[in-house]
């Protein structure tokens, strides 16, 4: 009997929870705020679904309801992606080691 592909996805999901568990415990507490903003940014990879929704259909019907929801989702996710990564970068820039101690 063949294994349902769902089981494979479930396996990836469960294993990723464990990976997440160990990786996040090793994050230093002083970087917990950047951790939150970067997880925010990466969870916006949901944009791939939004892009599929936005590009679906043919030329006559690019403004179907489902396309419009796709476009809106692209907009929201893009705010998050750019905002999340950039604000994380900005924060991490401040954690640079300060050599000079005047």
């Amino acid at each position, binding site marked *: 009997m063949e294994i349902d592909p769902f089981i494979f996805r479930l396996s990836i999901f469960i294993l990723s929870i464990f990976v997440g568990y160990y990786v996040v415990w090793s994050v230093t*507490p002083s970087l917990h705020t950047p951790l939150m903003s970067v997880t925010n940014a990466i969870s916006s*990879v949901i944009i791939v679904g939004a892009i599929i929704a936005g590009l679906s259909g043919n030329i006559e019907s690019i403004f179907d309801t489902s396309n419009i929801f796709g476009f809106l989702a692209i907009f929201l996710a893009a705010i998050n992606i750019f905002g999340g990564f950039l604000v994380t970068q900005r924060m991490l820039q401040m954690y640079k080691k300060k050599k000079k101690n005047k």
Partner: protein
Amino acid sequence: MSANLSAIFYLISGVLFILALRGLSSPGTSRRGNLFGILGMLIAITVTFLSIGNFSSGFIYVLIFLLAGGSVGAFIAYKIPMTAMPELVAGFHSLVGLAAVFVAISAFLNPLAFNLGLPGDIKLSSLIEMSIGAAVGAITFSGSIIAFLKLRGIMSGSPITFKGQHYINLLLGLTIIVLIFYLCKNQSDSFFWSMIAISFLVGLLLIIPIGGADMPVVISMLNSYSGWAAAGIGFTLENTALIITGALVGSSGAILSYIMCKGMNRSFFSVILGGFGGTNSAQQKDKTKKPVKSGNSEDAAFLMKNASSVIIVPGYGMAVAQAQHAVREMADCLKKNGIKVSYAVHPVAGRMPGHMNVLLAEANVPYDEVFEQENINNDFASTDVAFIIGANDVTNPVAKTDPQSPIYGMPILDVEKSKSVLFVKRSLSPGYAGIDNELFYRDNTLMLFADAKKMTEEIVKNLG
């Protein structure tokens, strides 16, 4: 691009996201980690475009919305002051939630585009997955909006409670499950829409009873929810990158909530059920005035000048007063006089995990001078001056001595062990937990009643 090839690229971007989080294990590797994250995102988006390959129809609109959102996001990222990070993160969570809802709606209306079957005849498993994604997404959205309003101060931070609140939430939660069940049975639109509407309501009701200082837990919890919503959508779209990311973010938020709860010695459920820190729990036992020693900036400067070591304990009040730069100036002055300065950060100081660390980093405080509670607590006994600025409950010894106290058992910073304690505070008012801090009345405590920033600046002048 073939489905198999794009699946491999999605896997790669998932791995890059893992490396992005891994990078945060130390400040030195964190920036490279962030670049891995950006690279992963670029790969995921590019592969999606290539695998659709249909650029004729809506491509230009997709690009417009992508760039419009991107510019808004970039603008916010550059403009936002560091003290506003908690509400920014809450706001971002709401966007992820809403995006998940929108994607689920698109998939429901046009399942063909996602290979999920025909409208009205969607695969059962996909239907369940997208319903879960949409419900969790909707809860994340409305919950984060409330958290945002509370953190921003637009909505009062005090908990809003009413009778039967938890039963209503439970009932609504069960309703969502029933609606999903019927949706799977006859695929009717109305069940789908009402399920989403009720989920929005649940998110709202879930967060309104939770008070301002419990926000670190709320933010982490909503972080976790946004991850689970993404994972739900990931299953619907059969997309590995999304499943991996959802799991990572979900467990990350869960761990942060756990750390925050432990920092307050409260169970996750007691935080979620809310009502803590309202006027009803603020029981002042005796209103009799106890003698308090209060001083001015000169006294404080004198005390610190004659010390050989000072530990600075920042709290939410420092963030409110934007005093972090003044604090660092003060530390610089002290260091010039050969005094050892370190910072002690309690896990729940501020309004989100790591809040104080970011503010201190913004003020150019070297991160190796900032210590977590367990690494510095033993040093208080050998410290001359503990300088507490904008913190209160996290230093209250009552957490160790009085089993009746609402904060009993909460791990606190042992500031009372240092030779003298300086408290910068606007008034004698009790902290968030609504309990008096006996530290205020000790002989070796000097209260400095003033705005945190002003007081610190004056101390700097007197040190100079």
